[in-house]
């Protein structure tokens, strides 16, 4: 089992809060204006540093030709050190020629905002595309946001009194509005500039402001994701890499787990931001024997998943906070019938509908205690987009081996962030095969569905269709071994203890917590889930730039904890726990180990900036 910490050595990530956006389009598309407006509006980005290198605009070439493409690159970084000649993370391509000219420079898995209205037959020809890049897979591997900019601009400015050619002139403002939503920028500075710039033509002002708001609204309404920071792959260890998002890595990890377990996948789900892309990704891979089922609601999603688990599939259901809240009763049934199942919770800003496109880590206590009755189940969390692949496999291993539902926690940062991922050797992935019960397991030739394996305490998996092992399972308390309904009090005590012991026993089957502590630090920074990249970057930075001696550890297993966690916590004078919640892991550590830790907590629904963690560490070291 690779643990997050070993992985980190492969990818020596250096996280820079930095975003590079390149606007490309026809000279008439107003890309310079769009770029400069957006940069000015970005003045509020922490300790902004905005550099504006602009590429030499081609002399007036025919519209739609590559030669006629002009571009404008804006670079916003939260950090003083900039590597030269960085590739743009985001390309705004106003037509096929702009895409053709600049696609090559875009960072792998970067975001491409493309004006679909301009992708006409004629324009594709003029830009020398053989086939339409939007459909022929050229843009595979990039996050593509398709925006019908002309249509939206026309409708946005429809009653602004602007007509004819003038209408489409404010198309660039629509792009700025969408980027304002994507990068959390205020509209006011741009509105003020437009009002001043076109004060003599009120309807042009009106059109530009309406287009600006139209673009912003498109972002709000289509819940397009906010990307605010980018993992800057500094020094990578030898290997073959691809750039991957958390949701994609989770989907591929599940497919890999199914192959290693030689089981078909059944994914029962219901669309919800930010988990829907797992359904979208898995739906593409029917040729891996993946069955995706878009249920009528989350209760049917977890219900159908229980049915598929009963039938012998690797059964998974994925959702976010509000969906997990609807699945408590179903998960409790899966726990009582002791069927293998993975429940993915891609956390988002809560509570209730909350902030759907915002990251937060506020479902931990819900994952641990979110069911009526004594119902402990394993909980595991992905630390970064690339870690999600291994965590999916580990969740499957535990679910299958111990015949239990497992909750896999991710969040918006992991799901929609992306980073380089060292492609593993598929054959070297763990063997997850768990034999189905095929023969009676009782002396008298009968089958006892709750006769537990001595080592794992798991009950046998006898799937329907297996001759001679007919049996009934259900939500009422079952009699030990026979599984018949039992109201007997002593039996209920014994079964409650057995279910708890089975989950607790998993602690003997997971790696000890590794601590990155080069030279005996006094302060330990410990995190879980998506705080891994910013904690690691902050500590690397402090060690490298100020020689600060601080230890670092990251928890993948939240239930059961690694066996040495208590010991690790006890061996440090101070412990800092950064979390995007009000201190949920700290609460559990107090309960489990009576240990006092310091928190760095915010639910401001933005990932931690490296500076925030760095300053807190320095404060605690002072």
């Amino acid at each position: 089992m690779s643990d997050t910490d070993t992985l980190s050595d492969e990818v020596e990530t250096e996280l820079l809060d930095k975003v590079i956006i390149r606007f490309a389009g026809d000279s008439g598309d107003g890309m310079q204006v769009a770029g400069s407006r957006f940069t000015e509006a970005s003045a509020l980005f922490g300790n902004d540093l905005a550099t504006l290198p602009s590429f030499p605009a081609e002399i007036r070439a025919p519209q739609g030709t590559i030669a006629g493409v002009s571009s404008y690159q804006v670079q916003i970084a939260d950090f003083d050190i900039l590597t030269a000649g960085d590739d743009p993370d985001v390309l705004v391509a106003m037509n096929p020629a702009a895409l053709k000219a600049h696609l090559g420079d875009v960072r792998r898995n970067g975001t491409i905002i493309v004006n679909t209205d301009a992708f006409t037959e004629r324009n594709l020809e003029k830009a020398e595309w053989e086939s339409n890049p939007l459909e022929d897979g050229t843009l595979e591997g990039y996050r593509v946001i398709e925006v019908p900019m002309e249509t939206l601009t026309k409708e946005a400015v429809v009653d602004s009194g602007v007509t004819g050619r003038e209408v489409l002139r404010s198309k660039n403002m629509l792009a700025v509005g969408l980027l304002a939503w994507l990068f959390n920028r205020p509209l006011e500075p741009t509105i003020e500039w437009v009002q001043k710039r076109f004060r003599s033509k009120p309807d042009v002002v009106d059109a530009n402001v309406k287009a600006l708001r139209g673009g912003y609204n498109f972002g709000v309404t289509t819940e397009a994701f906010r990307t605010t920071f980018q993992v800057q792959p500094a020094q990578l260890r030898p290997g073959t890499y691809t750039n991957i998002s958390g949701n994609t890595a989770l989907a591929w990890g599940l497919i890999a787990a199914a192959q290693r377990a030689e089981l078909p996948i059944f994914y029962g789900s219901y669309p919800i931001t930010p988990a829907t892309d797992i359904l979208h990704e898995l739906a593409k891979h029917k040729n891996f024997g993946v069955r995706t089922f878009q249920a009528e609601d989350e209760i049917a999603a977890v219900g159908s998943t229980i049915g598929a688990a009963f039938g012998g599939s690797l059964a998974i259901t994925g959702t976010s906070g509000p969906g997990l809240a609807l699945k408590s009763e179903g998960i409790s049934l899966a726990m009582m019938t002791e069927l293998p199942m993975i429940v993915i919770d891609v956390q988002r800003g809560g509570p209730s509908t909350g902030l759907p496109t915002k990251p937060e880590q506020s479902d931990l206590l819900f994952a641990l205690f979110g069911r009526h009755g004594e119902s402990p189940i394993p909980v595991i969390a992905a630390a970064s987009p690339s870690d999600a692949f291994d965590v999916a496999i580990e969740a499957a291993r535990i679910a299958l081996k111990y015949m239990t539902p497992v909750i896999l926690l991710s969040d918006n940062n992991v799901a929609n962030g992306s980073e380089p991922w060292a492609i593993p050797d598929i054959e070297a992935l763990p063997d997850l095969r768990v034999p189905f019960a095929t023969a009676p397991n009782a002396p008298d030739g009968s089958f006892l569905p709750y006769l537990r394996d001595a080592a794992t305490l798991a009950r046998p998996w006898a799937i329907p269709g297996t001759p001679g092992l007919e049996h009934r399972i259900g939500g009422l308390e079952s009699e030990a071994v026979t599984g018949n309904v039992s109201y007997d009090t002593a039996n209920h005590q014994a079964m409650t203890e057995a279910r708890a012991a089975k989950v607790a026993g998993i602690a003997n089957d997971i790696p000890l917590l590794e601590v990155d502590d080069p030279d005996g630090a006094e302060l330990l920074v410990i995190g879980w889930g998506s705080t891994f990249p910013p904690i690691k970057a902050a500590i690397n930075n402090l060690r490298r730039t100020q020689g600060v001696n601080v230890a670092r550890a990251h928890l993948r297993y939240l239930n059961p904890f690694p066996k040495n966690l208590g010991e690790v916590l006890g061996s440090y004078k101070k412990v800092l726990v950064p979390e995007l919640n009000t201190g949920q892991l700290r609460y559990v550590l107090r309960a489990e180990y009576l240990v006092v830790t310091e928190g760095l907590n915010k639910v401001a629904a933005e990932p931690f900036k490296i500076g925030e963690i760095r300053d807190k560490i320095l404060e605690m070291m002072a």
Partner: protein
Amino acid sequence: MTTLNYTRADFQTDQEPRWCPGCGDYTILSSVQRYMADMGVAKEKVVFVSGIGCSSRFPYYMNTYGMHSIHGRAPAIATGLAASRPDLDVWVVTGDGDALSIGGNHLIHALRRNVNLKILLFNNQIYGLTKGQYSPTSEQGKRTKSSPVGSLDFPFNPISLAIGAEATFVARCLDSDPSHTIEMLERAHAHRGTAFIEIYQNCNVFNDKAFIKLTGKEERAHNRIYMRHGEPLVFGPDNEYAVVLDGAEAKIVDRSTVSPEMVLVHDEASYSRTQAFALSRLNRGPSGPAPLGVFLDTPRESYDDALNRQLAEVQEKRGSGDLAQLVRSLGTWTIE
């Protein structure tokens, strides 16, 4: 195919049924066990999934694979099982509370999707297990512990609801008419896709004699309208009543008052579904003449067949999945 010569006993379990003495569930259980003995399906391929209620105790008394799940969720759980295991024979047993109250959404979506499931709804028009509250099929005004001055709820007509939810097989039978019950089980099993059977079931402790009009010795002959495909809809001890169409509405008339060609001929195979809907409106609950038998049998491709067909088609077009190729599909770069 090995010859299966099961008897009813093969389908009985060591768990002694815990229903109250005289409950209609006992007769349904014996009908199902008798039918399954001759159904011609290997016992291990049969799975019963139920929700919660007296009726939902059924799986414990069938010696097959079974799950007594949670209230209202059996159709969703059975959907996941049937969609992933097309080789299985999946049956759902549920009650009027379990399927039409908390389980209403999963029922109408299972019917719409036409997954390969046989849904048996034991309608006793009461919540039995929780000791006698009214259910979505109880007659409006019914006095029960949760409606001491009469319930305000206008009841569902389960057949009309199923037809409105695009069900492809809809039938009704009586707990106390085992041979007709077995005939309906056979028809349901023969139908590829979701088959829905409403079974009028007497709860003799909390809602006794709810179906007396259809089971009482003298009255039943006057009230049972057995529907047979292609035959005119006539009933009564001497077939003295007939069903006719008045515009789009089905009505019961004295047979003597209409000419033979006026009598409605039962057509369970009409994809317009309208005649079946009209027949479903003939009775307001079991308080008078009620159609029994198959209202509708209009097959279309089952959800699980389509799902597995899609999997095969994609596999054929793209070849079976190659994980090594997939993980490189977003483009890679190598560092020496």
